[in-house]
């Protein structure tokens, strides 16, 4: 048997079900590795003591019908966890301990999983490098001083570094898929309405979705099966029959029509990304898929549209962090001064930047020119996909325009940082499911990802395509454990 922490979710659950491993052994193995991996800075808050207690409790009376029997899982610190501090990577929630559980994490615990701890992320999920976190940046296990992507950077790093078997992140404009791509892991953003947003600290409500981040496609299907559910507590949750994604997982994609959108061939795209895409296309062909050139004409407008819609919603969603009810408060002589000091000191620069952009685009006199226009363009982008999906079953693109960059490389250039999301944001705007799978490496040996985009609620299809491609690509992450301390 290979080292516990390097096992996939599938292997760990099999070993638990076959009683080859106990929950306690597994939990302790991940905790031991975490103790030696502080340099990566993936944890904001650990739940190690309670996790060991819970694993013992599981072992004393194991329920092997669970889909995640006694499996320890760390989650992004954007999910509210009952009794465990939840910060959203922000100083303003530095001391916030929820008395309630998000639906998505509750779904994990209801299937036997155990909370290992809360993973670092960009502040309020605003960032593409995990550098906006109040709790410091996260190291990408792929290479020293490399960003792990963002905003689910702690999550991607934790999966890649074998600090959690799987994890869940959230994706508003690419926050699952881009970090997955940067760390050589798998990340799926489900259809909007698939996973409940109840109990997830909101960034941009019309775009936010939780999703699985895993080592491989099969684990991804297993985890999606657990977290996706209809929830009456979220009015945007959709009541539809969800697949048994792991059971129905299949490499048979013969005859599937896969679209290649010409607009994703952006200026200055590195040759290696172009090559990666070509390889993906030929693998798909090898699997018997039919490749069809398609057009998504409004792709160019997706990024500016996203950077109007998301900050607009965020500016309103973050108004509740005012020092009155919970979280950080900086006292003032009067209410206005208290607000100003609390929010000036409590929020970081990127969050403030987006609150200002959002406030601006919603202001009277600017609303029509920005927010309303962006909503119209959003409909056009959606329609592009609708049209494309009348011809194809799925769409294949690169996940990101580059591999992981150095910590600090883009912190002073927000626009170049935002450009990282160029291939991922259109999918959020259209509410579609998208998955990033590791598909190759660049000249520095850093991982690169391919993205498969599906029709609404067609997660099974993109999982199957990814499963088939994964087999052909046979990606191996080259991680040297350079950060481990004794």
């Amino acid at each position: 048997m290979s080292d516990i922490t390097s096992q996939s979710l599938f292997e760990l659950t099999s070993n638990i079900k076959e009683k080859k491993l106990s929950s306690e052994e597994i939990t302790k193995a991940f905790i031991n590795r975490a103790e030696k991996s502080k340099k990566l800075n993936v944890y904001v808050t650990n739940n190690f003591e309670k996790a060991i207690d819970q694993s013992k409790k599981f072992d004393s009376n194991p329920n092997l019908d669970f889909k995640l029997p006694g499996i320890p899982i760390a989650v992004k610190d954007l999910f509210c966890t009952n009794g465990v501090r939840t910060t959203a990577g922000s100083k303003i929630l530095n001391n916030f301990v929820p008395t309630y559980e998000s639906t998505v994490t509750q779904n994990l615990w209801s299937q036997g999983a155990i909370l290992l701890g809360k993973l670092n992320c960009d502040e309020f999920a605003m960032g593409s490098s995990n550098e906006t976190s109040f709790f410091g940046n996260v190291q990408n296990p792929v290479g020293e001083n490399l960003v792990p992507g963002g905003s689910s950077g702690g999550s991607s790093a934790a999966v890649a570094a074998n600090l959690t078997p799987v994890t869940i992140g959230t994706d508003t404009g690419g926050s699952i898929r881009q970090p997955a791509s940067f760390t050589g892991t798998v990340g799926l953003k489900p259809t909007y309405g698939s996973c409940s947003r109840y109990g997830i600290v909101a960034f941009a409500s019309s775009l936010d979705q939780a999703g699985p981040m895993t080592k491989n496609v099969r684990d991804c299907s297993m985890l999606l099966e657990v977290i996706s559910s209809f929830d009456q507590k979220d009015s945007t949750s959709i009541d539809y029959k969800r697949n048994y994604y792991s059971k129905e997982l299949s490499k048979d994609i013969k005859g599937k029509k896969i679209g290649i959108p010409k607009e994703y061939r952006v200026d200055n795209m590195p040759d290696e990304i172009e090559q990666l895409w070509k390889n993906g296309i030929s693998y798909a062909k090898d699997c018997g898929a039919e490749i069809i050139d398609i057009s998504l004409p409004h792709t160019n407008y997706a990024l500016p549209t996203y950077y109007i819609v998301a900050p607009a919603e965020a500016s309103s969603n973050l108004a509740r962090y005012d020092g009155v009810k919970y979280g950080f408060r900086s006292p003032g002589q009067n209410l206005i001064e208290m607000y100003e000091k609390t929010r000036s000191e409590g929020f970081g620069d990127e969050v403030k930047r987006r609150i200002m952009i959002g406030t601006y685009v919603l202001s009277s006199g600017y609303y029509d020119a920005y927010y309303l226009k962006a909503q119209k363009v959003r409909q056009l982008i959606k329609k592009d996909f609708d049209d494309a999906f009348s011809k194809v079953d799925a769409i294949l693109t690169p996940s990101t325009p580059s591999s992981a960059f150095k910590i600090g490389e883009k912190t002073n250039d927000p626009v170049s940082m935002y450009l990282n999301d160029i291939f991922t944001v259109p999918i959020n705007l259209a509410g579609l499911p998208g998955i990033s799978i590791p598909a190759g490496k660049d000249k520095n040996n850093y991982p690169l990802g391919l993205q498969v985009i599906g029709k609404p609620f067609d997660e099974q299809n993109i999982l199957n395509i990814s499963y088939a491609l994964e087999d052909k690509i046979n990606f191996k992450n080259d991680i040297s454990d350079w950060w481990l301390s004794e």
Partner: protein
Amino acid sequence: MSKNSEYLIERENKQYEVIIGLEVHAQVTSESKLFSQSSTKFGAEPNTQVSLVDAAFPGMLPVINEFCIEQAIKTGIGLKAKINKKSVFDRKNYFYADLPQGYQISQYKYPIVGEGKVILDMPNGQKEIGIERLHLEQDAGKSIHDIDPNNTLVDLNRSGVALMEIVSKPDLRSPDEVNVYIKKLRSIMRYLGTCDGNMQEGSLRADVNVSVRLKGETEFGTRCEIKNVNSIKFMQMAIISEANRQIDLLEERKEIDQETRLFDTKRNETRSMRSKEDAHDYRYFPDPDLLPLEISQELIEKIKSDIPELPDEKKKRFIDKFNLSPYEATILVSDIETSNFFEEVIKNSDVKLATNWITGELFAVLNEKNLEISQSPVSAKNLSKLINLIKDGTISGKIAKTVFEQMIDGDQDPLIIVKEKGLKQESDPKAIEELINKVIENNSDKVAEYKSGKDKLFGFFVGQAMKESKGKGNPQLINKILKEKLNG
């Protein structure tokens, strides 16, 4: 409407007309809040009716309370208004300590109810007031500034309670019309059970828009909005004071600033709260946590079929069926409890007498004791018994008043009072004739005067005869026999 009933404010041979529009905030009658399951009960300990949603905890999401939607539709139907099959909840963004989300969920561009109307019964006829729209929104919490010397305390019990904002067109022209409008609106909502209309508990409040113009002018003047006035009396005072303030400015050839003002009830004047320049930019946008609200025709039809008879229809029926005057009918339908009481009384008794007794004696007692009709000291059952005693001649109207006074004390049965006190009317013609003979004998001088042409003395003889009967003589019989004796 006749000219002389117009409400005009005079200045040096000039007459100013006052233009008023109201934004009424009516609390929806509902067990739970608009987007959460917390109770809406009034008067609970502070912050005991607050859910995580109401307090805007991270990750909490609003879920629409369908009952509140139905209540709004019901009210819309009561206002003869268009129900919009698609409406949208928007966020109205502003910071305040008692607004936990940092925004109020309201409806901005697409309200649930569109244009409707309310008919006012004014002394000189009916007047129609247009309704611009009705939309649903959340109430805020309450900031309390006078408990702690250094801090403001916040009570979130009210936070998230459903309100209907009912916006009138600028069709109101006087404080009297405002009085009648608010009462009518309240009456309709109480008939429907959609708002209890309790102004003391804040279930009904209004923002009052006032502008003035010279009589005959067709353009509207610059308006000011007086925020959050919570009684009809204060609304009327505020309108008069604000209209005069604006007229003073015009007379001095000064500009009226469009602004939001507050009414100071102690000083009876409005003062500026914020000018147009300082007006909040609420940055309304559709709430992404809520899908657009879609209402099916089936639901509208179902609610329509549950709508009770409303004041206007009831009034028409009372006039047509019971032959009441419009004035009487208006009074009796003004609130549902009164009309129910009336209908209960007339089940077993005369309509005309019932009308007079309810609008006369009973209302006088209620007024004097400051009671609602639901707290009436005399039940409908006993009042109808009393009316029957009058109708069948057992007691006279005058005796009935004595009986009624006693009935008030613990809702006593008039039959028992009449029996115990021996108040039954004397209707035996022989007995009446006897006592009239006595009166004629004792007043021979007056009889002579009467016969010589002093007709007015007839009343004197009636009085004497009544006195002789200790008030129990049947007045019709006394009249009849007296006439025979004196004129015969």
